[in-house]
């Protein structure tokens, strides 16, 4: 199934080229994302039962294991939710005359190219090819970020393309160093192969590998939105159309984080401890959370606030990977899933609010709960969830990571992390909660949801993150355990 997954978006793109009617394009979009989910579920089932899968053709470049399946499932599930949401979103944009009907085709074309590149990044086993796919994610999503084609969107798109391309170029230097570290150990064709590198990790050249890890962390960290390379992220997330923000935040950041985790696994296996990578990751993770906390406190734009919250959560995942105990890795992987679901739900509800109120300024919005009963409630509960309140799922993964920090001996880092999380919580409450109540003084907006199907998707996500905090299906746990074993090398 692993090789069918990248083919579905390609066929979708070809079909979209041939169709003219926007109705047909919506149908193709829904069908494609549905098929992707079915494929991904079958693949997950196979991986849970059989472990890693390698496909023989095309020189054996396709490879999936539990770690890639986790991120892949996130990509495809969030892909389905956004594609359902997009239908109503685009119709409303047309009704408000913000876009022309012809632009629907372009939107879907770019969206499926974007999904294709992410699926590719997660199903190849070659470092070089993964790099190419991750660079391609930037290119495919550049015009999605600049979709509105106004001054703000163009500025965001330009920053996005330039900063991410340069960052990724630096990651390539890291990949060259990885290749160099395998000189004399692996044959030329296998020197960029995850599995081969991992199996021979102990005989790679450590000094080069350390240098390589720094470059890869900076490079992929740029795409993952880790501070101080995060500057493109708030702009791109706030200016992109809301469903695309959900994809960027819920999916793209994880794909880049996946690259870092893969490199981390090999380096730690080579050095036989996590002192080096742990220090770097903890420093960069805490810095990200700190940066996010400061900007969340002073934010006036709700989509930017959500974007900074993504930086915070990527920082938390980096911290978890830095601690590198079984509990921390488990928490980190779980946090990836929970953050994606919660954050994409928030961006989608923010999209409804934006379409209704037509402003991103927090101060100009009042009485969301009255005017948008469902998406408003989802947004409010989602904010509690993203800040780490029980019973939502983010709480359960955060508490795992914090316990791992305290029991792993990094008590001060644990204290700092908890304090920063409290600051973030206060920041979110202080800046956003005034949106929900009160009356608007001037013209009154008609209460009622606009994007009904999309709101349904939001509610489903809300249920998922609430239940996810209370109990977890056994196959999800099994999958995370497998991935944890891969990362820790046990």
């Amino acid at each position, binding site marked *: 199934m692993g090789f069918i997954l990248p083919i579905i978006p390609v066929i979708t793109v070809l079909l979209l080229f041939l169709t003219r009617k926007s109705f047909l394009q919506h149908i193709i979009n829904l069908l494609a994302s549905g098929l992707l989910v079915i494929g991904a579920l079958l693949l997950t089932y196979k991986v849970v039962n059989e472990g890693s899968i390698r496909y023989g053709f095309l*020189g054996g*470049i396709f490879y999936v294991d539990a770690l890639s399946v986790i991120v892949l499932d996130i990509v495809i599930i969030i892909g389905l939710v956004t594609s359902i949401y997009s239908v109503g979103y685009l119709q409303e944009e047309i009704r408000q005359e913000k876009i022309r009907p012809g632009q629907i085709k372009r939107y879907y074309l770019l969206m499926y190219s974007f999904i294709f590149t992410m699926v590719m990044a997660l199903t190849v086993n*070659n470092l*070089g*090819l993964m*790099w*190419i796919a991750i*660079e*391609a994610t*930037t*290119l495919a999503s*550049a*015009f999605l970020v*600049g979709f509105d*084609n*106004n*001054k*703000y969107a*163009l*500025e*965001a*798109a*330009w*920053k996005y*393309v*330039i900063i991410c*391309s*340069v960052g990724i*170029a630096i990651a*390539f*230097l890291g990949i*060259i160093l990885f*290749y*160099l*570290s395998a*000189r*004399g150990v692996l044959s*030329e*064709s296998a*020197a*960029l192969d995850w599995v081969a590198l991992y199996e021979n990790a102990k005989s790679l*050249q450590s*000094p*080069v590998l350390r*240098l390589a890890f720094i470059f890869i962390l900076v490079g992929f960290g740029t795409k993952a939105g880790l501070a101080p390379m995060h500057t493109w992220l*708030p*702009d791109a997330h*706030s*200016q992109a159309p809301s469903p695309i923000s959900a994809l960027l935040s819920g999916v793209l950041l994880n794909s880049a984080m996946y690259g870092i985790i893969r490199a981390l696994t090999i380096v730690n296996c080579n050095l036989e401890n996590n002192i080096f990578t742990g220090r770097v990751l903890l420093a960069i993770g805490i810095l990200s959370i700190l940066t996010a906390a400061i*900007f969340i406190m*002073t*934010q*006036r734009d709700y989509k*930017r606030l959500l974007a900074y919250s993504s930086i915070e959560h990527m920082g938390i995942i980096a911290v978890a990977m830095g601690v590198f105990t079984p509990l921390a890795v488990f928490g980190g992987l779980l946090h990836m899933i929970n953050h994606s679901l919660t954050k994409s739900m928030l961006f989608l509800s923010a999209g409804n609010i934006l379409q209704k109120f037509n402003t991103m300024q927090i101060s100009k919005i009042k009485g969301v709960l009255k005017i948008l009963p469902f998406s408003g409630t989802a947004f409010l509960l989602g904010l509690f969830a993203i800040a780490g309140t029980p019973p939502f799922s983010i709480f359960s993964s955060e508490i795992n990571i914090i316990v791992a920090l305290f029991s792993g001996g990094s008590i001060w880092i644990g204290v700092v992390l908890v304090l920063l999380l409290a600051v973030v919580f206060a920041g979110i409450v202080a800046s956003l909660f005034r949106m929900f109540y009160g009356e608007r003084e001037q013209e009154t907006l008609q209460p009622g949801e606009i994007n009904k199907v999309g709101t349904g998707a939001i509610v489903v996500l809300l249920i998922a993150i609430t239940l996810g905090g209370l109990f977890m299906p056994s196959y999800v746990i099994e999958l995370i355990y497998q991935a944890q074993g891969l990362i820790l090398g046990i």
Partner: protein
Amino acid sequence: MLEFVKILSILILLSAFVLMGNKRINSYIETFRAQSLLIALMAGINGIIMLKTEGRFDLLAVCVLILVLKVIYIPGLLHRTYAHVKYEVEKDFILNIPILISVCSALVVFTYFCLRTLSSIIPNSIILQLVNSVSVIWIGLFFMISRKKAIGQIIGFLVIENGLFVTTMLGTEGMPFIVDLGLFIDLITAILIMGILVFRINDQFDSIDTDQLNKLKG
């Protein structure tokens, strides 16, 4: 043959310095073209050596790709873009040129000290060439920072790519061909996208000065 490669790697570094000293966008593009030509020559020489010793065509194919894309197509594309968004000639850089050149020299020294850690696994003669090519990457990055016009930033990105490519060629004797090919496809798409964005920025802002991209803050 290997003597030529050494000379070429120095010339490529020098071309990066020349680029730093350029004042007009048209001369950026021409310097970039010259640098790419040098890299194509280098790939050609290495390709011939590879063909003789291992019987593989990979690097020669890459050489042709560089000639077509980086020497002919991309500079032409940039010239056309520039012709469309013509603006009055004005000072494009933040610091003056002597300071920029001194910083570049410092970058080369810095790279030398960084790469000394590799001396256990790579012969010294290759390390010196790697210093040249990795310096090109940093100079490209610095060029992007020092120029305010959007096209200057595109050129900086291309120079970073050039530096990466030479580093790959010297350090690894060529990546697997599929990786090289993918790199080129990515590169050409990136340049096309940046080119289109430059047009749109010019439409919206009536200028390609990236200092004007300052609306999104905080």
